[in-house]
Structures are given as structure tokens and as C-alpha cells.
């Protein structure tokens, strides 16, 4: 596969390491009421869609960026690639 790196352009997916669903960015609040339940769902439950999937790839053999790749799990078509750091910020993560 070829991932259109937002900074580097087309790069072979073999340069990347795959982690999984991009929802791993949305780490729950450790002090919340239902923290235990929330962390269980966060760590273990997946939508696992047959279709569009937002997922995390690490450019190990490149610039060491984490990317959020939107890829169809049936056709492997990639429709969007973003820097995970930007996505994390838009999803309200900070320090």
C-alpha cells in the first residue's frame, strides 16, 4: 500500500508501523466517575467496520510522525491522511 504522507507525499506502507483504531487518541479521563468502564471500552472494544476506518500508523522508517489514515477496510482505498498530532489537538487533547 501507499500512504500519502501529509508532509512527505507518497510513501510505501512498509515504512510504517500499524497500531489500530484512531479512537485510541480519545483516552478517557482517569478521574471520571466511570473511569474503569471507560478505560475498558477504550482499550478493548472496537467498531471494526467493514468500510471506512480511521486508524493510526507510525512512520518508523521516515519522519517518526504518527498519522491518522482514513482507509476502506474492504477496498484498502485511502481517502485521507492527517498528522495525528493535529487530530489530537482538534479532539481537545493538550497536556
Amino acid at each position, binding site marked *: 500500500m501507499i500512504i500519502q504522507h501529509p*508532509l*512527505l507525499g507518497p510513501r*510505501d506502507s*512498509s*515504512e510504517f508501523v500499524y497500531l489500530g483504531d484512531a479512537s485510541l487518541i480519545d483516552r478517557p479521563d482517569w478521574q471520571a466517575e466511570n473511569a474503569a468502564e471507560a478505560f475498558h471500552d477504550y482499550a478493548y472494544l472496537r467498531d471494526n467496520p467493514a468500510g471506512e476506518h480511521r486508524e493510526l500508523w507510525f512512520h*518508523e*522508517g*521516515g*519522519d*517518526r*510522525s504518527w498519522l491518522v489514515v482514513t482507509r476502506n477496510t474492504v477496498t484498502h482505498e485511502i481517502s485521507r491522511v492527517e*498528522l495525528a498530532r493535529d487530530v489530537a489537538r482538534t479532539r481537545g487533547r493538550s497536556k
Partner: protein
Amino acid sequence: MHDLVALTALGGTGPESCTVGSVSCREYPDIALASVAARLGHEAETRTALATLTGHTAPDIGQTSGHTVKAFWTGPEQWMLEAPFETHEDLASMVKGHVKDAASVSEQTDAWTRFDLEGPDVRAVLELLCNLDCRKMAEGDAARTSIHHLGCFVLCRSADVFSIYGPRSSARTLQHAIIAAMNSAL
């Protein structure tokens, strides 16, 4: 001045080199390296500091620039600086002196081994080594890629001169891969 004898990454007191057909491969130990990563919110200062250090604006993505001290892009707001070893052995602290708290600086000199490939058919060798579109690479281009399972930097110095930086501890493996490709392609 200390009296410890340095070894090259290949384990010799001097660099190794070999030639196949029109292409030569030379180990290049006489280089000092330091990585520079801009601190959050200090990207502009860092670039300015790099400009004064290299005498050239900080290189853009996939680029390299500079004169005695050269810089090439390694990641978002992150660069690697190159300078002659004999004059800049302690490059990192010199650079840190310039960038101060605008950037994090880390000595990288001996993290890497460098091989310079030179010759008219050098690109025929490179296409057996890495998936970069080497035929399209021009002077000043730099990219990280994987060679023989090793994370390497490939820099295009001129039409028929390329530098390959690979992990120091795997210098033997990298050299073997390069020479095998030279024998195969040439």
C-alpha cells in the same frame, strides 16, 4: 587533549572503500552530527539560528542546505546538522550554544555510519537498495528510507554522488548490501 584512538564504524582506524564498474563506495567517518528539534513555540527562532549556523535558510521538507555546516530535514521542526569532524567534533554543544533554549540538541555523531556512492550509474545501484524514486532525486534532496531492514537517510549531493547514513552498529550489514547491489547492477 585525550589520547584515545577512534575506530570507524567498520572497525578500522581508517575508512574502507571499493569500486565496482563506474561506481565507488567509500566509508566516510570524518563527519560530526547533531540533531536539532525546535521547542514548542520556538520554531521561528530555531530556523533563524539554523540559518546563521549553516549560512543558508533552514532546509524545507526533504531538503538539505548549508556550507561548512550543513542541515537536512529529518522530521517536523527537526533537522540533522553535518559538519567536518576535525573542526567540529563537539558540534552538539556548539549548536546548543547558538540555539539556546529555542531547541533541543542531541549529539548524533556516532549514532550513524556514512557511505558515499559516486559514479554515473549510481542510481542503478540505488534502485536495488531502496524504494525512493532515485532517478528523480536531484542535488539537495534528502529522504529517510529503509535499506535491507535498516532505517537510513539517503542524500543526493550531486547528479552522481549520493550519501547513505545508516545505523552505526550495522555498518557491516549496510556495506555488504551496498556492495552486493553494486556487483549486481554494474
